[in-house]
């Protein structure tokens, strides 16, 4: 019964995603008729369309929509995995401190050089500087969390360690910000706004590779995650290798969140809000039903947020991170008010 409901909502979500994505491709500062957008999208170059339009759609807007799909689906899935792993409805990729780690890496690159008297100019001006710094930051936090996960058998303690890491890296970023010049600080702040449109084709391929690896590992864990709905002790009694499973979920989440944060900036709220949003209309905990829906609706939410961020009809683009929070925070508050209790 719930399987059917999951399937119906999944199909509705996919169809909506198709429409919203095409609408998003049609949005932007350069007005392009819908018919031409569709022609460029489905037939490639045609004689009747302008080359500039083709260039804008295929080289700018389409990659941006693909990034939005990867980011939304990836963060939604990471949020769901974290909530089950930690048996906590408040868990999300942010709780593990992965995004904070990425922020620290970027902050060190942009502002640390000046504060420490080291020149980071070359790396900073290169195309790879920010993603590498963010990835290294995420990876360092991931390794620290994995080391803690190896020592700590209790997931609540691990959750607290994650929050402590976030606080720790946050305070280092604050200290760096305090000592850095206004120009460098501005540059860092721009990165924290998040952007779906700054990826080169190589960046997109790297992001896709990490996304596939993360999702692949995650799909391997779905049955075990269902057993974890009864807690680690029951899961263990049913034959789950709890420690190995925890490692796999953490690695999958790190791959997804780390790569997304590196290339797109810290995107808040999607990881936390999407699983709750999906559970509000598909009331199940079965990961085989939840995962496809969380990915579809995460992607849908991200494309919608990106469309809003473009402020249709204006020349301005809002920071994507601000839009996801503006949208995500009321959703979570609405869910809290509507439901007596949030579940994982």
């Amino acid at each position, binding site marked *: 019964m719930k399987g059917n409901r999951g399937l119906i909502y999944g199909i509705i979500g996919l169809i909506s995603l198709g429409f919203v994505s095409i609408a998003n491709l049609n949005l932007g500062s350069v007005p392009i008729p819908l018919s031409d957008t569709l022609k460029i999208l489905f037939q490639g170059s045609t004689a009747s369309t302008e080359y500039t339009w083709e260039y804008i759609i295929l080289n700018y807007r389409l990659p941006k929509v693909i990034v939005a799909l990867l980011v939304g689906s990836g963060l939604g899935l990471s949020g769901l995995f974290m909530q*089950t792993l930690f*048996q906590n409805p408040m868990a999300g990729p942010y709780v593990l401190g992965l995004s904070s780690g990425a922020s620290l890496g970027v902050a060190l690159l942009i502002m640390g050089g000046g504060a420490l008297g080291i020149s980071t100019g070359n790396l900073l001006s290169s195309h790879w500087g920010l993603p590498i710094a963010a990835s290294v930051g995420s990876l360092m936090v991931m390794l620290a969390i994995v080391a803690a996960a190896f020592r700590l058998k209790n997931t609540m303690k691990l959750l607290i360690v994650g929050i402590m890491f976030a606080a720790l890296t946050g305070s280092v970023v604050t200290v760096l910000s305090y000592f850095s010049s206004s120009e460098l600080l501005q540059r860092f702040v721009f990165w924290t706004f998040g952007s779906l449109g700054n990826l080169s084709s190589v960046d997109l391929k790297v992001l896709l590779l990490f996304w596939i690896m993360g999702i692949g590992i995650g799909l391997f864990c*779905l*049955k075990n995650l*269902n*057993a974890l*709905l*009864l*807690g680690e*002790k*029951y899961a*263990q*009694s*049913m*034959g*789950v*290798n709890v420690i190995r499973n925890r490692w796999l979920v953490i690695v999958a989440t790190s791959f997804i969140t780390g790569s997304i944060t590196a290339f797109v900036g810290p995107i808040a709220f999607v990881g936390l809000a999407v699983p709750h949003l999906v*559970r509000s209309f598909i*009331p*199940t*905990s*079965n990961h*085989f039903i939840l995962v496809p829906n969380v990915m579809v609706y995460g992607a849908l939410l991200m494309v919608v947020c990106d469309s809003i961020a473009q402020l249709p009809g204006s020349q301005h683009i809002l920071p994507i991170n601000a839009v996801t929070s503006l949208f995500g925070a009321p959703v979570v508050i609405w869910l809290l008010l509507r439901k007596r*209790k949030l*579940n*994982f």
Partner: protein
Amino acid sequence: MDTKPLPAALSTKALSIGYSKKPLFSNIQLSFDKGELIGIFGINGSGKSTLLKTLSKEIPPVRGQVFIQGKDSVSFSAKEFAKELSVVLTHPSFSENLTVKELVSLGRFPHNNWLGILSDKDKSNINDALSQMHISALSHRKCAELSDGQLQKVFIARALAQNTDIILLDEPTNHLDLHFKFQVFNLLKQVASQQKKVILLATHELNMAMQICDKIILLHDGKILNDTPEELIRGKHLEKLFPSDRVKFKEEAKIFQFQFKDFKDSK
């Protein structure tokens, strides 16, 4: 022709249990056959849960071995072991979105494929478990909406769906009213004798355990006694169990009686 006797369903050899290499009890020799309901009794903190955790491989023994059907429990893979022994824990935590049937279905985890798809056999096992616990009517209810007593039956049904020869239960009648306690004991006895399972339950309900269990394990004064209720009575082991002379064991009724002070006189 000589037939070799079947190995005990669950047994231990020179088992020492405890934490951090510090044994709580040493040299425990236990042996249970299929069809037996065994109550484990001891005061709070006496080591009932430690014994159950050691038998279920949640914690390693300090020394010695646990055997399942004559085979060292260490030699089982996690999945193989989950097909031999299931548990019902105290303080269950669970996702509140789960319905009764979904929770019980998780018991089939060690038996189904990596996609968790339920076969016809899985489904019939689940339905049998629900009907044995008399909770079929609750199948589609959310577990979060159930009373403590109903929830306990759901978790026992989950263990039954796991379809193992051995079931360990840690204080399954805690927080239940007298009627539910009675029901749970009855159902466990029925399952043990009709389905030939070994069921061990840690309990504080010594009066009920004495009436219905085939054997009682007493954890008292640093020693473990394991015998039938009748033998324990004959050996006068129950009289010294509580440090108060106002808790008395009545042999003929197989129950403990409490003599409360008459506070009216002290006014």
